[in-house]
């Protein structure tokens, strides 16, 4: 039975780039611990010599396509959904001081 600590959940939240509030932390420590305990029952399954499943349909591989431009330019339309743009560029806080 593995139980996650607050510190571990903080590390996971950082990796996932999620700000978690003080009130949320205890809830996630408890529920993620119970989920991890739940999925640990997989350890008992005998999977010796079993190939991990890569695709639901046997023999299917991801198709490749020729590397040619098929899309037309929808720059302006797509940027209508952006939180902040200027001169056709996406704006974010300064990264390098």
């Amino acid at each position, binding site marked *: 039975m593995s139980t996650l600590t607050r510190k571990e959940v903080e590390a996971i939240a950082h990796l996932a780039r999620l*700000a978690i509030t003080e009130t949320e932390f205890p809830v996630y420590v408890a529920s993620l611990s119970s989920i991890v305990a739940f999925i640990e029952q997989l350890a008992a399954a005998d999977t010796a010599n079993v190939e991990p499943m890569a695709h639901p349909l046997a023999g299917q591989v991801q198709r490749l396509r020729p590397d040619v431009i098929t899309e037309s330019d929808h720059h302006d339309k797509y940027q209508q959904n952006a939180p902040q743009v200027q001169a056709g560029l996406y704006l974010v806080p300064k990264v390098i001081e």
Partner: protein
Amino acid sequence: MTVHTLTIAELARKLRSREVSSEELTRACLARIEQHNKPLNAFLTVTADAALAASRVADKRLAAGDAGPLTGVPIGHKDIFCTDGVRTSCGSRILDNFVAPYDATVVARLKNAGTVMIGKLNMDEFAMGSSNETSYYGPVANPWDRTRVPGGSSGGSAAAVAARLLPAATGTDTGGSIRQPAALTGITGFKPTYGRVSRYGMIAFASSLDQAGVLTRSVEDAALLLEAMAGFDPADSTSVDVPVPKYSTLLEQPLKGLKIGLLKEFFDKGLDESNAACVRAALDVCKRLGAELREVSLPNLPLSVPTYYVVAPAECSSNLSRFDGVRFGYRCKDPKDLMDLYKRSRGEGFGAEVKRRIMTGTYVLSAGYYDAYYLKAQKVRALINEDFRRAFGEVDVLMGPTTPTPAFAIGAKMNDPITMYLNDIYTIGANLAGLPAMSVPCGLVEGLPVGLQIIGPHFSEAKIFNVGHLYQRETDWHRRAPAGYA
């Protein structure tokens, strides 16, 4: 006229004989929505003006004799499908302001087939939920009992179709999100083979499991819609290039000699006894129609829920990394640096269950845990897949319940994720193995619907429709409407 009670097949006949116009039908749907939607909370967006305009175009085609079986039929789309120029929220705050810049392939194909889009339907946030309670826009109520959930994640689609607000709606099914709500609201829900329907423009949750399908009031309607939606799409790299049969013309094959496997693992101690009785009665109907029943065991199937809760969160944590507050979607106020922008936009934009799954996925994929959880789960998934393959060597289709119990109360399972996850115990297997599966109504328990599940081998859509259609010819559970919505 009570057009709201009719199926697509029945409406299509009336449309073509000019007994009713598409505009009249569209107005009837809009009036039903106006009258009933508020307490149900099924629709997030109603596109009335665009719908009326589309219905007039459909009426012209019908008048010109240039109409297909779906021309002029009103439908709704789960809000996970991108709709050009229409808000596409995926039930999330993070996409509350997102206006899709293009149509999903499913939306485009159904539009080309002449359907009239009435609006966008509520859903669990990013399709993560089994009760439609994780939506940013609030829970959807079950029209059979508004204190209960309609199931999820396609809960808005299910409630709207069950309440006769419109004849059919699209949905998506990653772990049962079409079949489970269809079962809990007494309608027909069909999930096709993985790759049968394009996922292009369908907001991704778990890409190796996600598949689009339909929620309807009859099997025949599901067949009609799927033949318009399905087929190869170069824009989806997992779309399969296999011809689409004309499902609606293959519904009448006699069931004599059909071998039905009863899923032993589904009739377990978790199955509500009254649900089991409804399913057994449905199996008797199939037997009367000439099918042979035999018990089949899939020993690894009980591991499908823990397998799913490794694979699906892992894929979701990757898919949802695109929501970063930079190019589209919600951005937090006054970010102090880029990391703060990412973390708070995501922390504030995603709801509790989505964050839980992203963190679960991040954990099982993280260094040191990948082999123990993710790789292990993909191996168990292979075992489950092999169990199904072996079973389909012996029988044509598998049958069992869709859910362990009828609809539960709103709020009952929200504080215990594992109990909520176990509601999908009978549906997840088909997703892990990429199989087509359908739920059809097969009874009522204390006034609440129960679903029969039919699972077939890859690309056996026609057989599943055939079996379900003949079952519906012998029964009238699919014609029962909830009180107050008849």
